[in-house]
């Protein structure tokens, strides 16, 4: 694993700014990986052994993801919407898992660790570099059962909604009264009052195809851009 300062620089560039949460996140990931015995989590032979559950969508989560190399789209990063500054690190090979929790008291202690810095954010950033892990974090060894449908790798499960026909992957379907629905049809979604619309430049695509010209003449396009 790269040294802390190098990781922090890369993490803040990826995230968009350098902030105290970046320092906490990089250190949280370094500690988590150390505890589960992965010294180069982003390397080709270790990345498939690692799962990380982040419990907040804050700066710290980006730093954890950057440092470990886990990604939402690779299913190695799981977002648990708890609003808690914590992340769990799972070694899929050994089954060992540790939950690393950022302590609330570390915020109050920033003044003690970097008293010469007046600006609050700069003081926290510096203090979070100086604090030992024992002050910055609490750690729990935890047991995590990862359901088969949550594992990285090819899609193992697909089903179709009995109402709208939508294909639902990874067992995210809902069974109601013995029928299988997608979450939208089961009224278990974040949006409401959905109405299908058209939009300007509907036929844009990043790459022209040989068929494009013919299709444009016919007034339609024949290719799809997604799976």
């Amino acid at each position, binding site marked *: 694993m790269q040294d802390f300062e190098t990781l922090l620089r890369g993490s803040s560039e990826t995230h968009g700014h350098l902030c105290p949460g970046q320092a906490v996140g990089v250190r949280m990931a370094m500690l988590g990986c150390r505890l589960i015995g992965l010294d180069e989590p982003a390397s080709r032979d270790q990345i498939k052994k690692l799962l990380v559950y982040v419990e907040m969508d804050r700066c710290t989560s980006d730093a954890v993801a950057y440092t470990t190399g886990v990604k939402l789209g690779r299913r190695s990063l799981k977002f648990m919407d708890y609003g808690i500054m914590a992340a769990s690190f799972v070694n899929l090979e050994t089954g060992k898992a540790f939950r690393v929790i950022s*302590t609330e*008291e570390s915020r*109050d*202690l920033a003044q*003690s*660790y970097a*008293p*010469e810095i007046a600006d609050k954010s700069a003081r926290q950033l510096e203090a979070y570099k100086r*604090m*030992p892990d*024992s*002050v910055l974090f*609490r750690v729990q060894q935890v047991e995590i059962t990862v359901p088969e449908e949550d594992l990285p790798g090819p899609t193992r499960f697909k089903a179709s909604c009995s109402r709208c026909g939508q294909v639902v992957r990874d067992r995210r379907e809902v069974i109601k009264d013995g029928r299988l629905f997608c979450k939208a049809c089961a009224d278990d979604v974040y949006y409401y009052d959905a109405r299908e619309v058209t939009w300007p430049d509907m036929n844009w695509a990043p790459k022209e195809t040989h068929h494009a010209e013919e299709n444009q003449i016919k007034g339609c396009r024949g290719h799809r851009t997604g799976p």
Partner: protein
Amino acid sequence: MLKKIRLKDAVGTALAHDITEIRPGEFKGPAFHKGHTVCNEDLCHLQKLGKNNLYLIDLEEDEIHENQAAAILANALAGEGIAWKDEPHEGKINLLAATDGLFKVDTTALAAFNMVDEVMCATLHNHTLVKKGEKVAATRAIPLVMKRVAIERAAAIARQNGAVLAVKTLRQAKVGLVITGNEVFHGLIEDRFAPVLSEKVTTLGSKVDGIVFAPDDEELISQAIANHLDRGCDLIMLSGGMSVDPDDVTRKGIRMAGATEMNYGSAVLPGAMFLAAYIGEIPLLGIPACGLYHRITVLDLILPRILAGEHIGKADLAFLGHGGLCKDCPECTYPHCPFGKTA
């Protein structure tokens, strides 16, 4: 795990902890000790102490009694020059100075330690001069029974820089004094600085090896410093010539003598124009004229720290600001006053 039992059912069981009795103005201490087997004769006394129920302890594998916890905490807190005995008194362990010297507290680690739930440590102020056997701190776990891991984390926090508490013995310095000023050098007035500084030095167990008088001339001041160094002095103290007047050239003399580090100005009154400089590892302290008028100045805060082996830098002088204002009381009670108590 703690199990509550009614007092009348407690006869024959062992007390889980010391039971404290307080008689205002007369006595505070354990009326009954941990492990004492409760008998019928005790019931009335216990009731008078407000006890109608007692705890029975059945420790789980991951739990720890307050007395064991206090010993783990004391062991982690105690550094060089600190003594303690594994004899908790009402769950508390006192930490004592194992030697005369300067008591030092890692105040940041202490704050982090005390932010852990269920533990505490209270200390004297950082940089207090203490005598062997003097109580400097006390620690305890707060609940009667707690998780072992919380205590071990608190102990790790206490050890983040070695230990939170230490007593450093003062070295016996060979001090060279340089008394500057034309008025003294030419005999216009009698010097009163040398006796004041000599007393402060000898009170702390060091000795004045030589006193050189110099006029307000940077070259002669520089030579006086060089003479002391040649004779083997390992601490130089210079008086006068520290302000902003054109005749005040002591700082120039110190620089000319080869100072490798100069920290001029402290956030202390009296003592704003104090200087801590170094030639290599040898400290040079420039004491402004306030040292003649005030019984206690910044020098009294810094000299013990120098003798305890601290390197005094800009931040050390700056951080004295909070608490660095002497109240000029008609009757000085230092060190039993807020002066110099920075944290």
